[in-house]
């Protein structure tokens, strides 16, 4: 299994680049703005994602204020409420999580972790970011358009998405949303092809696929999935736009709106749902798999122990990725499709629980007999396991078709997907930022602020979403601007809702401390050195920190082992870097 003792070819020719000048950017603009350096592009992606994410955070406060204290904020009309809910969901899933994991972490980590100088197609990579930025700007524009943004729900189900009863349906809102999604997908495809090709073709000497850190396996599999899944959303957007603008009837059957016969006929609203969820379910794993990969590395580094069952972890990622393409209709158990599909999709959905559970076991078995340093990245990783496990287990409720029937479209679903693809991946993002910030900036994030941020976020987020399941169990539907006091709610949920709202506001404000920490530590953080955690993977072995343009100076590293040689018996330190030839002498004197 471990390559540490295996025969190493000492005659590997050097990959020396004597003259890098040609490739270096020549002006401030091409260095920091129209940059083709994956590291700068990563920061641009991350900055933009965080900026639009802040909008989504504020929107979530408004949602919670309305649910916890109905009528308190008087501009939250039903129209505004549905617009807020829609934009919050779409921003978080697509423009924040997808962009941050793949565009942000993908860009920063792929070249460094595989030992490449940059992405394979740097120009296309740059273009990818600028198109993403355009997509975000179009999305933001819809807030200022006449009629405001669309209020169709992030799932954009037709026919209501393009009819007058929905905010933005007959105005610019839905068109801007569709246009923005199409731009996003075009931009993402450019970046995604880069990530895949770089991982397949750009690895340095000795970096076999099975020596790659799991972070890369997660990002790689997620990117392949995204390249296969996003086209389904793209065509759905095109068809819906045609229905709305040209009067085609892809998704529109004969229908009567407010007493008026519309000119549509023959289309199928359920077709849209199939297309949407053929994208939408893989999307969950497009967010989750990079998180799985990253959290594996965080746990391994900070427990000073190799990730347990590396090969199983790799195969689990690949199998989850593949299976996630045959489970989409579990979002549609009560959609009106032939209910007999339920047998198939319930089975595939619950089967996916097996490789996912194995990943959880292996994370915890990595802790077993480890040397656990409870630093911030490790704390966030532990919190991730708790929230992901919780959200994964409630997935067994919703995936098991008949149990889904009473729970679907209730707050139980909202609690489930926030726990599993909201809170859990975001905890990983935080952990990852505390982990890699020293590599990116050369300074440590402030520990005190970090601990405050961790405790409030973890405990607070759990306090928000755990009780929310029970609101749904009572029967409270999701996407209700106001429930009132219906008879089926035997114990009122107003108090519980108010509690959840207060918790959400507190957690929200704790994120401002995090953002402040990021800015403050740029100047005032403790200098970190090149490898503060004693990590073995390649990105910590760069000659400079932060890594310069081209990453590796004159000579690319040679990889001798996998990324997890921690606490190897007999080794001089408790980690052996991937480019360390121990116990052999170096391949050639450097």
């Amino acid at each position: 299994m471990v390559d540490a003792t295996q025969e190493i070819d000492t005659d590997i020719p050097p990959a020396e680049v004597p003259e890098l000048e040609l490739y270096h950017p020549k002006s401030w603009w091409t260095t920091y703005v129209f940059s083709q350096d994956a590291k700068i592009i990563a920061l641009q992606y991350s900055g933009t994602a965080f900026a639009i994410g802040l909008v989504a955070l504020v929107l979530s406060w408004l949602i919670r204020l309305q649910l916890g204290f109905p009528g308190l904020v008087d501009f939250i009309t039903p129209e505004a409420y549905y617009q807020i809910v829609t934009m919050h969901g779409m921003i978080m899933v697509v423009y924040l999580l997808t962009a941050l994991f793949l565009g942000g972490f993908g860009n920063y980590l792929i070249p460094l972790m595989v030992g490449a100088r940059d992405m394979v197609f740097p120009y296309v990579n740059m273009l990818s970011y600028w198109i993403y930025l355009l997509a975000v700007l179009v999305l933001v524009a819809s807030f200022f358009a006449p009629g405001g943004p669309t209020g169709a729900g992030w799932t954009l189900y037709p026919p209501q998405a393009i009819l007058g009863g929905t905010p933005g349906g007959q105005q610019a809102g839905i068109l801007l949303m569709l246009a923005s999604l199409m731009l996003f997908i075009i931009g993402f495809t450019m970046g995604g092809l880069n990530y895949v090709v770089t991982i397949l073709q750009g690895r340095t000497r000795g970096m076999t696929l099975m020596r790659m850190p799991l972070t890369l396996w997660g990002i790689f599999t997620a990117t392949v999935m995204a390249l296969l899944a996003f086209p389904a959303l793209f065509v759905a957007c095109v068809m819906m736009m045609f229905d709305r603008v040209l009067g085609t009837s892809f998704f529109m059957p004969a229908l009567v709106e407010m007493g008026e016969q519309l000119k549509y006929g023959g289309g199928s609203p359920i077709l849209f749902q199939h297309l949407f969820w053929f994208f939408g379910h893989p999307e969950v794993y497009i967010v989750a798999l990079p998180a799985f990969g990253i959290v594996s590395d965080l746990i391994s580094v900070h427990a000073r122990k190799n990730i347990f069952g590396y090969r199983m972890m790799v195969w689990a990622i690949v199998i989850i990725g593949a299976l996630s393409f045959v489970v989409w209709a579990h979002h549609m158990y009560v959609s009106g499709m032939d209910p007999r599909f339920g047998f198939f999709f319930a089975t595939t959905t619950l089967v996916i629980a097996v490789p996912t559970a194995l990943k959880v076991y292996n994370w915890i078995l990595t802790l077993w007999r480890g040397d656990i340093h409870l630093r911030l990245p490790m704390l966030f990783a532990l919190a991730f396991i708790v929230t992901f496990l919780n959200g994964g287990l409630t997935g067994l409720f919703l995936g098991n078709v008949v149990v889904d029937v009473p729970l679907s479209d209730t707050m139980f679903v909202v609690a489930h997907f926030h726990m599993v693809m909201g809170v859990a991946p975001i905890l990983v993002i935080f952990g990852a930022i505390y982990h890699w910030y020293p590599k990116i900036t050369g300074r440590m994030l402030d520990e005190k602020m970090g601990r405050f941020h961790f405790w409030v976020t973890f405990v607070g987020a759990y306090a928000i979403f755990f009780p929310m399941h029970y609101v749904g169990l009572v029967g409270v539907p999701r996407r209700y601007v106001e429930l009132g006091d219906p008879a089926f709610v035997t114990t009122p949920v107003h108090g519980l809702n108010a509690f959840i709202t207060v918790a959400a506001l507190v957690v929200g404000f704790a994120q401002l401390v995090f953002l402040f920490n990021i800015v403050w530590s740029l100047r005032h953080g403790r200098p970190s050195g090149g490898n503060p955690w004693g990590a073995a993977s390649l990105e910590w072995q760069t000659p400079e920190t932060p890594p310069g343009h081209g990453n590796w100076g004159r000579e690319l590293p040679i990889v001798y082992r996998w990324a997890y040689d921690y606490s190897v018996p007999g080794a001089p330190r408790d980690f052996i870097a991937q480019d360390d030839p121990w116990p052999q002498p170096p391949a050639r004197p450097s």
Partner: protein
Amino acid sequence: MAIAVVLVVVVVGSVLFHLLSPWWWTPIASNWGYIDHTLVITFWITGLVFASVVLFMAYCVFRFRHREGARARYEPESRRLELWLTVITAVGVAALLTPGLFVWHRFVTVPDEAADVEVIAQQWQWSYRLPGEDGRLGQSSARLIGPENPLGVDPDDPAGADDVIIEAGDLHLPVDRPVRVLLRSIDVLHDFYVPEFRAKMDMVPGMVTYFWFTPTRTGAFEVLCAELCGVGHAFMRGAVQIDGEADYQAWLGEQPTFAALSRPVRLGAAAPMR
């Protein structure tokens, strides 16, 4: 160290909240107690897994936290252990799936004796149609909808003449008699949702969807729309009244048929209709 304590608190707190909090599902009023049972089984199995995994994790964090001079054990993998864990997980998943699919089979198998009742949704109200004495609903189409024919019943289909039409009113159903609920929407997606019945299904314009249930106790139950249908979504409420047989027949006798509703229009029409 604090994290190990907090992990234990999270488990204990979650279990206590589950057991002690007053928030639980509303008392059931249909035959779908099976669904509730499956849900309870799922709570037990998943709760057990959650508690044991998180507590084990808390133990690991406590036991193997960093100490001066300590070194982690080097152990890349263990096929035996991974195989065992796979098998145990697969068994647990099967234990959830099997009863689930069994109940789902019942859910999708409508009994022959179930009476039809049609629910028609539009932004933002509920209407109903009962098959009348012939036990059959007449054909319908969105194209036929107009001010005089709000539900789009086909006037050419003789089966539709005796259909009972309840426009924007309350539905009554007899207790203990299975019904197949046929669902139709004339504009956007809706979802006929009565929490006490447990069952729900989307209503899709252009097609007829269905579910079946048997009401098991009398009383009034609130109907909610469970699929986002525009700005009036949260206010799209209705009521279903489950009656004893006598009350039901009395109510049914007062409801107009399609033929009766259409008659004044026919008299006023310029050309005689068939």
